[in-house]
């Protein structure tokens, strides 16, 4: 029943003419400042969108990549996008290349787009990692933006980015490494902030509707938890039995 409600709400919000309100995520300001700093210092910006397939995080990561590409195109800053890291990145890479190319074209600078600045490093996570780290060490970017789905390699990359004095902005998608990323990064988008940032930037009704539906469900979850706490304390386990599989 909850699933049916989820489906219905998503379709309802996607069809609405008025876009739901989403607040601006603070990390987006940090991205703008970081790219500005890189432009002033004459250093490139490195931005990656994850090593996963077309999942929840990669879609958000691609939106943020499009935003970074737009700023870099407008400010004439070199953008490097390391791609790869997973078997499904052969597909997501093509979407990323199109996205960055379109961003440069929209900014009126199609000639500035260089596909060689989007190297495919490897289809394997631990082969992608040293390639990414090598790019950071050689190019010494002013800003490193690591969004999308990154797993254990994120710590390697964030710490090395910090080591080359790059402003490091990451997004934690993997519970296990979020704490470590928070230590290693200058700014971090925790959990839902990444898809919210992606939706805010893309202004796509579907993405914004997703964020709205998730928020509604979070309120439902909070309400259920509170009701459950009260009921358990008075001796009723009806909520447990309802939610148990």
């Amino acid at each position, binding site marked *: 029943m909850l699933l049916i409600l989820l489906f219905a709400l998503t379709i309802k919000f996607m069809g609405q003419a008025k876009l739901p309100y989403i607040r601006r995520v603070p990390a987006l300001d940090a991205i703008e400042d970081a790219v500005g700093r890189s432009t002033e210092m004459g250093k490139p910006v490195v931005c990656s969108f994850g090593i996963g397939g077309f999942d929840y995080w990669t879609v958000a990561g691609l939106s943020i990549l499009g935003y970074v590409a737009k700023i870099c195109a407008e400010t004439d800053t070199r953008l490097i996008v390391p791609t790869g890291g997973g078997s499904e990145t052969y597909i997501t890479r093509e979407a990323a290349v199109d996205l960055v190319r379109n961003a440069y074209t929209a900014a009126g600078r199609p000639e500035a787009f260089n596909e060689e600045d989007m190297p495919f490093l490897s289809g394997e996570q*631990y082969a992608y990692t040293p390639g990414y780290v090598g790019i950071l060490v050689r190019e010494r970017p002013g800003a490193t933006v690591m969004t999308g789905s990154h*797993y*254990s390699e994120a710590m390697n990359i964030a710490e090395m980015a910090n*080591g080359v004095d790059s402003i490091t902005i990451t997004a934690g998608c*993997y*519970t*296990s*490494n979020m704490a*470590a990323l928070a230590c290693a990064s200058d700014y971090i988008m925790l959990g839902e902030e990444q898809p919210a940032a992606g939706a805010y930037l893309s202004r796509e009704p579907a993405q914004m509707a997703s964020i709205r539906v998730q928020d509604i469900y979070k309120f439902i979850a909070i309400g259920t938890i509170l009701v459950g706490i009260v009921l358990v304390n008075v001796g009723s386990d009806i909520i447990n039995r309802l939610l148990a*599989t």
Partner: protein
Amino acid sequence: MAKEGGIYRLMATYDKRWVYVVLFIVVLGPLINPIGMPIGISALTKNYYAQLNTLQEGDIVFDTWNMEFSGYMELKPGVLATHKMFIEKGVKLCIAFGHYEGVALPGEIFKQLQTWLDRYDYREGEDYIIIGYVFPNEAAVAALAQDFHANVRVDWKGNSIEGTFLDDIQNAGDFDMISDYTTGLATTYMINHMVLQYGVPMVENSIGVSVPGHLANLDAGLLTALLASTRGGAELEYLIGSPGPGLKSMDAFTLGHYSLMIFIIVGNIGHYGWTRRTGAKDRTGIK
């Protein structure tokens, strides 16, 4: 001229390479020359040990190695100790990999278990069957959970599994337990399609960073037991009375943690002293 902040500045802004050097020394030293420090046994490991002890001879366990070789290095003590328990109890194992690197693991693991294999006459094909890399994605996990023999007909060497103990397995619900060693590969898919669908009890041996996430699964009843990383493996080795690589590395583990704590304390003393001395509100950390 003395630098602003003096010794406190030095303590607050030490080069991070000192952390690497000290960590390297305190980890390498005990590995070469073990000290033999005592360890405590956690409640998690005691529960894991108790769950494995519920198995009877002839029970069929789905033994899933959802780890790459790099993850195996961390999970090795738990993997070896758990398999020693399985061999001793005479359970039947159906071994599957969640990563292509799993191809190299049986050679490594069973080489180290050779004494136990010989002692209990534990044989491939009769007591354990390796079906190979069968979990490339969620669809494969779901398919295998639903109809085992439609998806697996031969073992990893091409020998038919007909006429073996796997004849009794129609779907995931026919396994008595799932024993998973994970770096996070197909584990969630297995919980979704095997545990939730068929109610198979599942025990987990997980890398350290994934433990907080798996604790939620344990608390929700999706996992019946959890073994936490190298330390959990070392504790299990102690409980089964078979010291191995886990216990050997606990000295290094302890000293590594303590050295990190010392660096944190030094950094905080430096930070506090520096801000007090100079009156500044904030100081950055290591260079």
